[in-house]
């Protein structure tokens, strides 16, 4: 039953690949995604109190954190599938390309759905690499020179990271072996971590942090991220920005405690420093950008940095806040890219300077964009506001005042950067004759559905979800 979650995505991909039957590809994808979503929510419901669900011992085991991740992925998968339907139709894409798109899209979703379910570190690495491989062709879907350049940079840097990470995985396995254990799972690693040789542990830590860090978009290795996340079709951007980076970050967070036990590695300090550099650089770059999709892409780098910083506190409160932020960011960022998508449909350009007075051109796109920018920037009463507040509070509880000050400063810079660009686009008189294009109905629906959790989580955290957050943070198990 649990295995049906990723398998449904594969089945949908197979369906889309069939030449004739592929006509219904968008509908099949949406249905599969909704089925996956309902299954995941049920799973989250059963696991929210804690405990582990073993499907295949040593290979597939789930806990509340995994279930939370699955639900997030499924949520974005579902809304992105819905959005794709109208988005591709608005572009007059040929039917065979639509089929291929959906086949690839489902496979991409499959690779991400598998990661939280897997327990074996080697397999996790394989699926991390698969998320890169299966999304390269989605990034280059437009086959324009820019899209190809973005896809190439994306390919080179993420696979480079994956290759460095594989050596890290192998070294970790070596370190595990040195302790006499062969259980290469999250739990097995945690249990053996204290007895592993220090040199190997340190080497594995550096390799894994660099390798997976490249895929999360941590700052010296972030250069591909704004390119790929701006050139891909908008629903793919939502998947890339909203969940792909989050899923890899989940892998890093779960690995954290293997290393955190060794005080000479300064894991917390690494996380905080890398996180703050990412937040700061992204917040400043964000003000310089001229493309509103890049704007949101930089915001992703910023949020990854925020989550990493929170996890670097190594306190339970920090962990809860980090998981919360992961949740809030995924839900909100997908919304932002849908808003960017409808803006692109309405105006036909990604250039911020070319869009003035969007309110007059397309009231819906303007509202969506403004809403997305406010929500992701951290304005109350939206989900990100509460989770960022939780992170700052966790920082204060840990007496990391400088950290909190820096983080708050960068968040404010990013907020004003976002708002400045977006208000420039939305307000004012339209510069040119508006080229009115109808926003496809499915796009609008996807946007509204994606907005629901953002609004709801901003004012009310359901009891079950709060419980799931707590137990998920316990899985990460700080101190």
């Amino acid at each position: 039953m649990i295995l049906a979650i990723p398998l449904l995505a594969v089945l949908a991909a197979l369906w889309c690949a069939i030449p004739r039957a592929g006509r219904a590809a968008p509908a099949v994808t949406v249905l599969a995604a909704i089925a996956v979503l309902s299954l995941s929510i049920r799973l989250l419901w059963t696991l929210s109190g804690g405990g582990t669900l073993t499907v295949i011992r040593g290979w597939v085991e789930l806990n509340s954190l995994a279930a939370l991740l699955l639900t997030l992925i499924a949520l974005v998968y579902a809304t992105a599938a819905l959005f794709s339907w109208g988005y591709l139709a608005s572009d007059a894409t040929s039917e065979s390309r639509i089929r291929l798109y959906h086949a690839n899209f489902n496979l991409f979703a499959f690779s991400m759905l598998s990661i939280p379910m897997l327990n074996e570190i080697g397999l996790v690495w394989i699926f991390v690499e698969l998320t890169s491989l299966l999304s390269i062709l989605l990034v280059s879907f437009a086959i324009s020179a820019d899209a190809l350049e973005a896809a190439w940079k994306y390919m080179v840097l993420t696979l480079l990271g994956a290759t460095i990470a594989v050596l890290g995985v192998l070294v970790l396995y070596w370190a595990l072996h040195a302790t006499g254990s062969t259980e290469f799972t999250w739990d097995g690693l945690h249990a053996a971590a204290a007895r592993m040789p220090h040199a190997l542990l340190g080497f594995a830590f550096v390799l894994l942090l660099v390798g997976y860090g490249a895929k999360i978009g941590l700052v010296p290795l972030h250069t591909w991220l704004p390119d790929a996340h701006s050139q891909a079709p908008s629903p793919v951007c939502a998947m890339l920005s909203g969940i792909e980076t989050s899923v890899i970050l989940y892998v890093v967070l779960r690995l954290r405690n293997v290393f955190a036990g060794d005080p000479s590695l300064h894991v917390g300090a690494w996380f905080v420093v890398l996180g703050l550099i990412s937040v700061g650089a992204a917040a400043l770059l964000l003000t310089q950008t001229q493309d509103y999709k890049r704007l949101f892409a930089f915001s992703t780098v910023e949020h990854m940095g925020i989550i990493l910083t929170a996890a670097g506190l190594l306190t339970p409160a920090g962990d809860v806040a980090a998981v919360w932020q992961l949740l809030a960011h995924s839900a909100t960022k997908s919304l932002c890219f849908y808003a960017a998508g409808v803006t692109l449909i309405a105006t036909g350009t990604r250039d911020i300077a070319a869009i003035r007075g969007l309110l007059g051109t397309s009231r819906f796109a303007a509202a969506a964009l403004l809403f997305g920018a406010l929500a992701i920037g951290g304005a109350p009463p939206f989900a990100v506001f509460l989770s960022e507040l939780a992170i700052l509070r966790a920082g204060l509880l840990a007496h990391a005042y400088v950290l909190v000050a820096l983080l708050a400063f960068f968040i404010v810079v990013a907020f004003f950067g976002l708002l400045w660009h977006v208000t420039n686009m939305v307000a004012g008189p339209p510069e040119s004759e508006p080229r009115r294009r109808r926003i496809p109905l499915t796009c609008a629906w996807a946007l509204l559905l994606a907005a629901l959790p953002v609004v709801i989580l901003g004012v009310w955290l359901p009891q079950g979800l709060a419980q799931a957050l707590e137990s998920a943070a316990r899985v990460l198990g700080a101190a």
Partner: protein
Amino acid sequence: MSLLSELNALALGLFIISTIAMTVTRQIGACIQIFVVQSLLLAASAFLLGASTPSWHLIALGCVTVIGKAISIPWLLRALVPSEIHRTRELSQTIDAPTALLAALGLTLLGYAFGAHIVGAAPNLSSGNVSMGIAALLVGLLLLAVRIEAVPQLLGILAMENGAFLAGIAIAPDFPLIAELAIAFDVLLLGFIVALLTRAAYRRIGTTEVGGLSALRERIK
């Protein structure tokens, strides 16, 4: 020193030489051939270690490497990448060959030193594999920085991966076989997707010097 470990050390030496050779070869065809040689040397090292341990895992990994990297990748590249690209000579490089050679040598020594340092933590294994694996990983990074042509960049990533596995067969000889198979599958998928991307780039942009593209960036106003 038994004969098997001497031969393994020879395979390691030739492995790093072939990795360095890929960094400076000027023809795509030759570059692919050197990559095949490098993969075969990885397989040879796996066979030799597998025979001396003895370990079926390593022998299987060697076979997977031969099939996946030495046969399938060149075949995929020949089938999917336009033949004009294969005939390209005089590839452009960001730094000239002698400098690249010296840098590669420096990285090799760095990899050696680092590997020796790491192996000290857990002896009783083919320490050469770890050192040369790390060295090949570093030289592969250099390759990615030196080359801007699509196919050599792909080969650079694969060469790095070969380096990682060269270290891997020594440090994790009983890594679960299912993972090995999946990794081999990943490599094939990688070759397929990148070959498609290269072809698309060649048709659309007219060049495969994709590493040199820089239209996407922030411009300071």
